[in-house]
């Protein structure tokens, strides 16, 4: 079988060109980025809950009790849940991965690149 792309890691790659930091302390930038990603995922979850609630209301098939007591019922469900967590963490900790990629493969800053390009 052909090896699949590691899409979780690849999705959070850094782009070429040094990342700008706008706060004096890069730690602020780092934490802000993680926080915004979490904020985004909360919004995603809220939209999903909204869909579910509207459908449940419309069809009246599932009770609150069913949801409260649910646990994964087989291996496939367990793996689906854990993959979701892995993807989630890759997304939220994007900036940490990108800073590591920058350390491994340092870039020029964009003003320098603009000057280079101006000669191309």
């Amino acid at each position, binding site marked *: 079988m*052909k090896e*699949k*792309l590691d*899409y*979780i890691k*690849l*999705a*959070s*790659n*850094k*782009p*070429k*060109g040094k*990342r*700008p*930091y*706008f*706060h004096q302390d890069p730690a*602020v*930038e780092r934490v*802000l*980025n993680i926080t*915004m*990603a979490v904020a*985004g*995922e909360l*919004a*995603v979850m809220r*939209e*999903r809950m909204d*869909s579910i609630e509207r459908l449940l209301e419309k069809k009246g098939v599932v009770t609150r009790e069913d949801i409260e007591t649910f646990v994964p019922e087989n291996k496939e469900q367990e793996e689906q849940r854990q993959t979701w967590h892995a*993807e989630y963490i890759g*997304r939220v900790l*994007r*900036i940490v991965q*990108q800073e590591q990629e920058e350390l491994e493969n340092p*870039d*020029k800053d*964009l*003003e320098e*690149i*603009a000057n*280079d*390009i*101006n*000669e*191309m």
Partner: protein
Amino acid sequence: MSGRNLPPVYNKIAQHAVFPEMNHDERARYNFLANLNKHLAHVSQGNQVAYENRVAPKFKKEHGREIATTSELKEAISKDAHYQMWSSLRRSTMEMRQQAGRSIVLRQAEELRDKARALNAGKDSLILDDEVAVPPYLLACDNHIMPGSYHTELIEDDVTPAANYDTGLFVTTAGLLGRYSDGGGKAIVSWVKKTYPNFNPKRILDIGCGMGHNVLPIAKAFPDAEVIGIDTGAPMLRYAHARAMDLGVTNVKFMQMDAAKTAFEDESFDWVQSTMFFHETGGKSIYKIMDEVHRVLKPGGLTLHIEQPQYTDDMSLFEKFIRDWDALYNNEPYWSKMHVIEPMDLMEASGFKKEDFMQIGAKAENDLDDGSQKADEPEDHGRSPIWNVFGAIKN
């Protein structure tokens, strides 16, 4: 209703056969990001307030004079807390948009490739040439902070760079380019038809066509014309061609070529078009490309280029500075250099005549505009679909 100017929901975007499959949460993530972009476009008005009320007075107090250059302005505003927060949020939003798009397309890279292959198989209207090098200005950094830019292939016959671009344009522009992201191409067609009602081009060239979103409205408007889109990015062309096939546009060819050195004969096109292309080239290439436009255009032929506005003397220092924000921090670096070039000088250098030069304004035609897009929307510099169009008739 909230009375807010809300972006359209993501599920309004047009589907086609190579458009990535998206699940509920992926659409929701894009809804969040479109709203965040919209929010930051409003907050960006705060940068001007911070500049006028805090940054400029502080500078004057310290130096006994006004801020005189954009680099002084940059130095001064970069210490301002509001600007710092806005900038880091805007950069973060663009990174999240890339992450979200790539996580959609990379998980289905092979399926997308296979769909494109099926639509492209046996067609002579997709002509790739692996001898065509990616120009150095596109290798210097990843434009739009898209990791891998337009050209990187993670699998054989990859189309994911284009698929990612296709899904996300709607988010970055908050849907203002319409369901097919083709509001630029539609706007230019309307202008040309209105201005030159008897213009009947037989052969049309679109340079830097990318995923073909702006060339398809042109091909549809002139169904008897032979239309050719060129680009150096093979993934973009594969996707563009498959997308055009599925959308039933058959009079357009996609060819892998560098716009600075095409294989076309002299005086072989009636119309040469580019849309948001030149600001992603380089300081020497831009002149070579315009030379090539002049060379391939027939006498009496039309050339038009949709671009960001150049900077004029009456533009405020602040506006010049904030317009450069995307150039430097959303990786479109040549944009920060190109705006000093007068389009007329650029065209004259290639042999177009001053008296044949034209310059107009254009706004995207948006089929999603249901009247809820309010006219008082603040200008989101570099993102709003309000452009400068320059060009000439070759005489």
